[in-house]
């Protein structure tokens, strides 16, 4: 995962101390992705080892008090990462998918119950996201808005999938020889 690259993106704007990096990272993504300062220092140590950052010349010996700057290699690594699409092919083992399929063992009705309960819960989540979004918009907090937009898009996709599941399960139940077979 790319804490490493997020830190490089900040360092690309100018040299920074570990503590400042933690602070800036969290100001942008901290609400969904808390970062402890130890993680920042260990990431910086790895970046330094790989030659992607270097300590500022007139800095302190102590990692915790040194400022770092991005190197040429660091800039290339950042550019390469930014330009590469994130791979999305693999479907992670989704508990909801497993649950719907498991419920289907006992028939269409239990599966529909699972689907409906999940849809209601996801809609409630979507309602909360929508409220947070209004707040973030009032604050003009762009990184937070982008984060919530992603959460909303994921919840929306899940609801759309659940709608489709319900329609398929219903169609399969009324037409056993039809599209849906188990």
């Amino acid at each position: 995962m790319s804490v490493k690259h997020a830190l490089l993106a900040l360092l690309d704007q100018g040299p920074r101390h570990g503590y400042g990096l933690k602070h800036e990272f969290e100001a942008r993504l901290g609400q969904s992705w808390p970062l402890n300062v130890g993680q920042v220092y260990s990431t910086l140590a790895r970046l330094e080892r790989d030659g992607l950052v270097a300590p500022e010349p007139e800095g302190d010996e102590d990692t915790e008090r040194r400022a770092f700057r991005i190197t040429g290699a660091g800039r290339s690594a950042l550019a390469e990462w930014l330009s590469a699409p994130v791979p999305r092919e693999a479907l992670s083992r989704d508990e909801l998918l497993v649950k719907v399929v498991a419920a289907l063992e006992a028939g269409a009705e239990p599966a529909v119950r699972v689907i409906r309960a999940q849809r209601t819960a996801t809609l409630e989540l979507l309602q909360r996201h929508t409220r947070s979004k209004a707040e973030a918009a009032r604050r003009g907090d762009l990184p937070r808005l982008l984060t919530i937009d992603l959460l909303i898009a994921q919840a929306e996709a899940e609801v759309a999938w659940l709608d489709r599941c319900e329609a398929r399960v219903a169609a399969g139940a009324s037409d056993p020889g039809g599209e849906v077979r188990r």
Partner: protein
Amino acid sequence: MTAVLELDQVARVYGDGRTAVQALDGVSLRVAPGELVAVMGPSGSGKSTLLNLAGGLDRPTTGRVVVDGTELGRLDRRRLAALRRRRVGYVFQDLNLLPGLTAVENVALPGELDGVGTRQARAEALAALDQVGLADRAGAFPDQLSGGERQRVAIARAVVGQRVLLLADEPTGALDSLAGEAVLELLRARCEAGIAGVLVTHEARYAAIADRVVFLADGRVVDQTTVAGGVV
């Protein structure tokens, strides 16, 4: 608080005999002033039927519909029409506005039909247009407005004057998601000002703007969200 809209065990059957369709089957729903309720459900689940009954455009086969304290079934045609005109606003997917009238004339129309008087109707219409951010387009004809602007005019018309109930059936129609959201934020703001709203939508992201989401399937309420508090 007393509900602005109350459906009590409402059923609606279209046709009879073998071709009868049970569009709604024992639906109960209360919507308080200031509350916006979204209705979701598959095509044919009875969403538009519910709105039509709530707005007195159609009558239930059994059950009661109460709007603003009045049971619609007890009203004769003329009184029902008057209540609809004065108390209920509708926003449809499209074709909301009369093309030959400007935005402000469209919004003023319900008031004028109601005998409010041209000047007052126009003043109320301008105020309503101002609330939806379109005061400066008051003189534009519908074909001079974007789809999103037309829907905002439709919302202004639906809440102008003394309306207490706002019924919207897929008001985001063909709008893109940002314009759609803007329309719904407005709808929500109008509800927060004290009107009760019912919003039919297929889209979860729009439904989530409501205080409560009710799910219909085969004419029945199968589930609903509880009022969601807290922050993510």
